[in-house]
């Protein structure tokens, strides 16, 4: 279409001369975009929507730190009884206990948001109908509960 150089009757057409457009204004993204509350979500989260999103992202750092802690614990276990006992003693410090409580809360939060995401992502068709997302999320919670009970039973059993 752009290659057409004439009008409908084949006469040459010259592009209209236009003055250069004045500069558009670019609003800079402020570093505190997630704290400022300038954006207001239509959801109940309102001005906190971006903040809650950032907290969800940041909580994954806590979960990652817990995993590093856990790997160190396994490494200590392979270093002999004395080294491992000393490590377990440090686990009783209030700071470490507090860290683990925060890590547990973060992991639970991530598990909840993961199953909610599952309801958004998965499209499960049964014949010609689609399973409602609510049921998929509920199914996830049930699986999660069964797995948690199984893990608890194994721990108690030993």
């Amino acid at each position, binding site marked *: 279409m752009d290659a057409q150089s004439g009008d409908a009757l084949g006469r040459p057409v010259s592009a209209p001369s236009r003055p250069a457009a*004045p*500069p*558009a204004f670019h609003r800079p993204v402020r570093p505190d*975009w997630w704290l400022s509350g300038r954006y207001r979500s239509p959801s109940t989260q309102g001005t906190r*929507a971006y903040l809650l999103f950032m907290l969800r992202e940041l909580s994954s750092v806590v979960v990652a730190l817990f995993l590093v802690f856990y790997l160190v614990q396994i490494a200590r276990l392979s270093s002999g009884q004395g080294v491992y006992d000393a490590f377990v003693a440090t686990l009783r410090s209030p700071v470490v206990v507090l860290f683990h409580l925060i890590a547990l809360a973060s992991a639970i939060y991530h598990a909840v948001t993961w199953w909610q995401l599952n309801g958004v*992502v998965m499209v499960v068709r049964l014949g010609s109908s689609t399973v409602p997302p609510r049921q998929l999320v509920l199914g996830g919670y049930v699986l999660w509960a069964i797995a948690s009970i199984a893990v608890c039973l194994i721990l108690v059993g030993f």
Partner: protein
Amino acid sequence: MSERTVSLTVMRYRPGVDAAPTPATYTVPFREDTRVLDALNYIKDQMDGTLSYRWSCRMGVCGSCGMMVNGTPKLTCSALLRDLPPAVTVEPLANFPIIRDLVVDIDDFLRKLSAVKAWLIPDSPKAIAAGEYLQTPEQVERYRQFSQCINCTLCYAACPVYGIQPQFVGPAALALAHRYKMDSRDGGWSERAPIVAGPEGVWECEFVGECSLVCPKHVDPAAAIQRTKLSASMEWMRNLVMPWAAR
């Protein structure tokens, strides 16, 4: 009964004159059925004819009157003043450059819409004389929701990722790419994949989810993007495990 009024603070920007947008406040009378767009029209007709903004259909179909109303991206033709507090702030859609007053430059979005080839690329093209590409109602239902997009760009204004990373293809364009991926008549995925599943496509999305909340047509771009992530991952896995089956 005395006439109710609303205090409407509108961001004004005159290119080449103002260094930055500045707020201007107008007191506008309103009735039970007055929308924000009606109030802007009142200002333009009765108070200041230089106020610039886009609008066309006034019924939530054309998608041109999107603005930030008290910080939320909304179609102003659908935003009733009676549902808002007595002081309302109207700003141009976030994350886009401001051309003048409430008019933003959406060229970037239009380029992305072209980049994802948001049109039908027939799986097996046939001559017009051969008739329509037929679909069952079930096949239509698979993509119908994602085909409701009116290109209003409210989702781009709600997306912090797009604000920080303007290279991100963004919610509406990716939702439309998913719409064609789910269309039984379409076979254009291999042409779209480099953009849609590329580094600036779906993987930039961090699933904030606000795009779906502000969408006036309930398109749910966030779901479209996460589903594209899933199918692109499955495809990658399949090609890794069974390279001989790669298309």
